[in-house]
């Protein structure tokens, strides 16, 4: 996973491959990097996602709890229809704003 500053107070975390319970150290490390950079808005880029399971959803909940504690907002883009539906089923979409693309996510984050 790669963290990049995206202007203003936003950071984009590029997710690659799998999101499972085993991804937790990598994703939390990316979170800490973004947090150290002072990001107030964290944008998860799921374009490179290959597979996500229930363990990965649980890990995203943990990620969300951390962001909430630090008053950081979470957004996401690049989800396939299938994973977007899973976000809706689990109601993660109510806590993580979903956008169609990076530009939309960042322009809204900047507003």
């Amino acid at each position, binding site marked *: 996973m790669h963290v990049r500053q995206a202007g203003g107070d936003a950071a984009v975390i590029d997710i690659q491959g799998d999101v499972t319970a085993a991804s937790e150290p990598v994703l939390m490390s990316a979170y800490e990097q973004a947090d150290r950079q002072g990001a107030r808005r964290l944008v998860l880029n799921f374009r490179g996602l290959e597979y996500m399971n229930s363990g990965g*959803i*649980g890990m995203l909940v943990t990620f969300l709890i951390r962001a909430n504690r630090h008053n950081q907002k979470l957004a996401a883009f690049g989800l396939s229809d299938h994973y977007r539906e899973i976000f809706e*089923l689990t109601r993660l979409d109510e806590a993580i704003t979903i956008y169609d693309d990076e530009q939309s996510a960042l322009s809204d984050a900047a507003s």
Partner: protein
Amino acid sequence: MTSVARPAPRRLASFALPSVPGNERIALAQVAEAVAGLGLSPGRLDKLKTAVAEATMNAIEHGNDSRAELPVRVEVFQSGTEVIVTVTDLGGRGVDGVPEDRAEVPDLDRKLNGEQDSRGWGLFLIRHMVDAMHITTQGDRHTVRLMMRIGSQDTRAGED
């Protein structure tokens, strides 16, 4: 009253996997290969794959305690307009590590408030991915049966 005989289920695949975490990816790939050509839409196939992966992962981790020597058996059938996948472990301990009838329904608000563990989405996902789910335990054999109708556009959350 005239009864219409249902065709006998046709077995499309049958395989066993060692109970090693990660092998659920093999299960979903083999099931996807077995049902190719049956007419499931890409979206429905994604749902079936997720349900199979979750059921297999639970069988590996919770049913068989990730003991590699214990197999998880996966069978795929076509019965009329239904695809049926059974996933069997030898632990009989339910999904997400607890018996299904006592499994807590995951609630995001409660999880965010620390009232529920962040995890525990497996059974919830399975139920919402397929048209029906049925669970049986016979001795040590614990089987999750997943059913998806071919040609349906909507997935109904439910349990037999």
